[in-house]
């Protein structure tokens, strides 16, 4: 193909750069165990809000989003807990964002979303609904309280 030398080099450089991006992505994914939510088949068991303590440092939270609240709305856990969040919606689409922990999920009717996160530092973490869900959307917030009240 008749293509300018510089041009060919630049296309190569773009390809290499993209390769580098893919590499760093995979590297970070393994090193920091960061991933997108897990995919589960639908199961009615997760549609009842619940906090299950598995052992001292392991919890399961069945979080149910609805217009305009999360249930459970306050989740108390000790520092260092590993929490499996299972998320679904009772009605319209909602969002579920714990920004300091990079937890980001959509709550969808007829579907179960799941992610796992460890809370190493004490504090109060806001769970913010970040998908428009009707007139009360801006009121929709829950909290994870890690080792409260000593933490605040």
């Amino acid at each position, binding site marked *: 193909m008749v293509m300018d030398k510089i041009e060919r080099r630049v296309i190569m450089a773009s390809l290499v750069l993209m390769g580098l991006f893919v590499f760093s992505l995979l590297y970070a994914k393994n090193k920091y165990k960061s991933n997108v939510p897990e995919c589960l088949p639908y199961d009615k068991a997760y549609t009842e809000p619940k906090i299950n303590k598995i052992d001292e440092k392991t919890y399961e939270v069945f979080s149910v989003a609805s217009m305009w609240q999360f249930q459970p709305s306050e989740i108390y856990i000790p520092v260092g807990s590993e929490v499996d969040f299972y998320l679904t919606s009772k009605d319209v689409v909602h969002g579920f964002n714990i920004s300091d922990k990079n937890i980001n999920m959509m709550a969808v009717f007829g579907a179960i*979303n799941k992610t796992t996160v460890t809370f190493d530092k004490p504090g109060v973490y806001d769970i913010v609904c970040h998908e428009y869900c009707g007139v009360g959307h801006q009121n929709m917030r829950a909290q994870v309280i890690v080792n409260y009240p000593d933490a605040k």
Partner: protein
Amino acid sequence: MQVSKSFKRVIFLELAIPIALLLLGIYHGLMQTIYRSGAIQQTSVAKLDYYQGLTLHGVINAIVLTTFFAVALGHVTMTYYLKKEPNKKLMWLSFWFMLIGTVMAAWAMIAGKASVLYTFYPPLKAHPLFYLGTALIIVGSWFPFFDWSRMYMKWKKVNPTTKTPLAVLGTLINFIIWFTCTLAVAYEVLVLLIPWSMGWTKTVNVNLARTLFWFFGHALVYFWLLPAYIMFYTVLPKVAGGKLYSDLAGRVALFLFLLFSIPVGVHHQYSDPTITQGVKFFHGLITYGVAIPSFITAFTLAASLEYAGRKNGAKGLFGWMVKLPWFNEDKFLFSYFIGGLILFIFGGVTGIVNASYSLNSVIHNTAWMPGHFHMTVAGPVFLGIVGMSLYIYSKMSGKKIFWPKLNTIIPYLWVIGMLIFSFGMSWGGLRGEPRRTNLGTTYLNPDSELFRSDWVPTTLLAMLGGIIMFTAGMMYIIIFFGTILRKKSQEGILEIPVSEAYHDEKRVPLFDKFKPWIVTMIIIILLAYIPALLNVNKNSGPGSPRYNIDNPLPIEASK
């Protein structure tokens, strides 16, 4: 060239109607930044609710303006390069479809019966006319595509060995992408949503609707972007006083867009349930593929501008940057285009962050997102659209630009406002500030339990930028309608700047035909979307009934 009255009239209406609607669209852009900063703490202003306004903002700016312009520019390009006007009846039919669709959707939104945002995710229910209106806009934009394909094939018969002009190639590729991706949203709207919103079907599979929407949704952003790319390749180098560095590079980039624009939609669903991590990762990889033609474009344009600068007498390594027509009244298109390109540097970089699979978890649905896409769709796309609309109108009507000095400054004002706005939004997003949220009533209200003081500086910056952008936008509207009100001073003709190529390579047959590319496109789409749809089918539970925006009970139960 001379064109018929009827042609002029269609183009004029297709350019002017969305620009008139921008008054409302941009007004509400400003209002959103004010509400979000907490400067006002209420749910509505002048009877327009926050989310109602946000729906208008998204639909007018991102659907109506962009679709009308893509059609108008397509008509202009095909006519100017192939020296033949499209079928008049079809031109008018397409225009009326789009206009009636716009009126229907606008009525539903203004009446407050469709405050569901421009993504209309079920199970929030909008008025059926909102869905129907959107569908009419889309179907209206198909007619010209069919007609242009006919014109092109006719031209090709007469000129089998002539290279298809780059602008024509780009227009056709853009509308092939558009036609393909809109099939999915047409299915979503006509088969899933309208019967459900009328109450004929009881429930809808929300996950399926979302997946179909995003089959369309990502390609939609390329449908916004490609008209701007076409102008950057074929108009900008000429206006800058130079040549397009390489014609072939443009073709390669355009065909890569054809391959990769659609099979990446799941990157908008990284946080969704029912789709496996493997499918998400695959779509993420292809998204990187679609970054390659953008890199090619960035390089080709920079080289073209350097060439222009040197031809204009520049010396040294960076001297060419100075020797470009930054503030030239007769070449005002340059100001609009370069402003857009400056923003696009940041838009592209933030876009790569969004695409990056798990990195997306940091910013998905936060204020970062609008921070990012205002530097794309409200950057090169918007500035390209409004600049070119003014250019085409002024040439075709034979009227001189109203207030030409100001006209060259507007794009830079927009850029400054946008950089401040987007900085505020991106910073807020990194701190977890949600998008699509009337923050003022709760998170930015010091009296509320939900108050977040860490979002005060970020939302204030966004408001400051919003005020500057609003000012620039209003100045533009004054200039556009000021020009319309002027008297004709010369004969109105159809004319667009045409760049020659610096490296005008020989015709490479592979890059001058569509079939092999379309077949490859379909294969990649099937590879990317069959697994996604199987996932959704396997992992979805029951479908959902209809909900109004103001009631936690389904419509059936609350009657």
